[in-house]
C-alpha cells in the first residue's frame, strides 16, 4: 500500500519539477537588457514628471499672455517677434533642465504642484502594474493559478513574483490583519540604493527620496486593479520609511532606511 502510494506520488512530483525546470529555462531564454538601463529609466521618471508639470504650466500661462497681447496690440511687429522668440527659447531651456535641478524644484514645490507630480508618477506606475500582470500571467509559471486567487494570494504574488521581476528580489516581510490591511516591508528597495547618503539622513533628504516611492505604490495599485480589486473595492496604498531591523545584515553602502507599503483594501457594499 505504502509502496503503491510512493510510486503514485513520485511521477507527479517529477511532473511538477519538470514544469518548474521548463519554466526556468524559458525565463532564461527570454530576451534581456541591462539592468542599469532599466533602473536609469525608472528613476528618470521623477524629473520627467516635474518637467512635464512645468511645461504644462508654461503652456497655459503663455496662452494667457498671448491672449492679453492680442487685446492690447500696440507693440510693433518686430518687438512682438522678439518677445515670441524669447518665449520660445525659455521653453526650450526649461525642457533641458538637468535632472537634479528638477528634483530640487520638486522639493521646493508647493502642495498642489507636488500633488500633481505625485499623481502622475502614480499613474505611470499604475500602467506598468496592469501590464505587468499580463506579462506574468502569460509566462506560464506553474506555481501561479490566477483563477483561484484570493486577496492574500494576490498580495503574496506581488511580494514574490512581481517584486522579483521588477527589482530582482522579494519583499522582505508581509504582515496582515486578514481584514484587508497589509504591510509590505522592503529593507533594501533597489531603485533608491544608489542614493545612499552618508551617516544619519536628515528629514530633508528623506523628503527628496519620497517621490521615488510613488512609482511602486502605483504599480501595486495597478496590479490589484488588473486582478479585479477595483470598482467595488476601495484600494489605498501609502508608503513610509521604516528603520531596518537590528538583526538584519546591512551592507555598508546601503540606503539606511527600509520602505513600508501599507495596502488597504476595503469592500464597499
Amino acid at each position, binding site marked *: 500500500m505504502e509502496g503503491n502510494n510512493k510510486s503514485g506520488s513520485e511521477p507527479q512530483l517529477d511532473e511538477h519539477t519538470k514544469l518548474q525546470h521548463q519554466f526556468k529555462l524559458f525565463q532564461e531564454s527570454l530576451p534581456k537588457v541591462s539592468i542599469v538601463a*532599466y533602473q536609469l529609466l525608472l528613476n528618470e521618471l521623477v524629473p520627467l514628471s516635474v518637467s512635464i508639470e512645468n511645461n504644462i504650466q508654461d503652456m497655459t500661462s503663455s496662452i494667457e499672455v498671448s491672449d492679453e497681447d492680442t487685446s492690447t496690440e500696440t507693440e510693433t511687429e518686430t518687438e512682438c517677434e522678439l518677445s515670441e522668440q524669447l518665449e520660445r527659447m525659455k521653453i526650450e531651456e526649461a525642457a533641458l533642465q538637468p535632472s537634479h535641478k528638477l528634483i530640487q524644484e520638486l522639493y521646493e514645490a508647493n502642495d498642489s504642484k507636488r500633488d500633481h507630480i505625485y499623481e502622475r508618477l502614480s499613474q505611470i506606475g499604475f500602467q506598468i502594474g496592469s501590464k505587468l500582470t499580463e506579462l506574468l500571467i502569460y509566462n506560464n509559471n506553474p506555481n501561479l493559478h490566477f483563477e483561484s486567487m484570493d486577496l492574500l494570494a494576490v498580495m503574496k504574488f506581488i511580494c514574490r513574483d512581481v517584486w522579483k521581476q521588477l527589482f530582482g528580489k522579494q519583499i522582505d516581510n508581509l504582515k496582515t490583519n486578514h481584514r484587508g490591511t497589509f504591510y509590505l516591508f522592503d529593507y533594501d528597495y533597489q531603485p533608491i540604493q544608489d542614493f545612499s547618503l552618508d551617516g544619519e539622513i536628515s528629514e530633508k533628504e528623506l523628503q527628496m527620496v519620497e517621490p521615488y516611492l510613488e512609482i511602486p505604490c502605483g504599480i501595486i495599485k495597478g496590479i490589484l486593479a488588473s486582478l479585479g480589486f477595483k470598482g467595488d473595492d476601495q484600494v489605498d496604498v501609502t508608503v513610509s520609511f521604516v528603520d531596518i531591523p537590528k538583526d538584519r545584515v546591512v551592507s555598508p553602502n546601503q540606503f539606511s532606511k527600509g520602505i513600508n507599503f501599507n495596502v488597504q483594501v476595503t469592500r464597499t457594499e
Partner: protein
Amino acid sequence: MNTASTNPNTLQSGVLGGISSSKSLKAFGETIWKTKTAKVNAELFTLTYGSIVSQLCSDYQRDFNKVNNQLFAMGRSIGVRLIEDFIARSALPRCDNMVQTSEVISKVAFKVFLNITPHVTNWSSAKDAFSLILDENPLSDFVELPMDAMKELWYSNILCGVLKGALEMVQLDCQIWFVSDVLRGDAHTEMKVKLNRILKDEIPAGED
C-alpha cells in the same frame, strides 16, 4: 571565441592598442554583456517605456512634437549619467575619429545596454555623419502606433537623447535624430548621427 573569453587581459590591451579592428570590439562587447552585466527581462523594459510614452501623450494632449522633445530631454539626462557606467564598465580609451566612435556605439554600447548591434551605414563623404540601422529595438517590441501618432511621433526618440547626452560628455557635440521607423511603416528604423564639432578641453585660466 577562446581567446576572447579566456583571457580578458590580452583582449583589453588588444582593444586599447588597435581600436580599429572592429572584430575584437565586437567580441569585447559580447564579453562585457555575458560576464559583467546584470540583466532584466526585456519585455519589462518595453512595457515600462510604453507606459511612459502613453502617459506623455495624454499629458501633452497628443501634441506629439512636445512628446518627442520631452523624450529627447529625458534621454539626454539619462545619457549624461549612462556614459559614466559605460566607461567604468568598458574602460575604453578616447576615440580618434567618428568611425571609431560609431563602432564603439554599435558594437559595445548598444550591446552592453540593450543587447542589440545596430548596423553602421550611410557615411557622409566628410566622415562626420552616419546612420545606425536598428533591426531590432527592445523599446518598440509589440508596439503599434495609432493612426494620429504615426505621422508625428518618434516613439524611440529617447535613444537620440541618450546618445546626445552621452556623446556630449565625451566632448562630441552631435545632432541626432530619427530618419525612419518601422512603427511609421518604413522599411527599417534608421537613426542619424551628425557631428557638429568637437568640444575643446577647457584649460583653467592662469592664476595671474
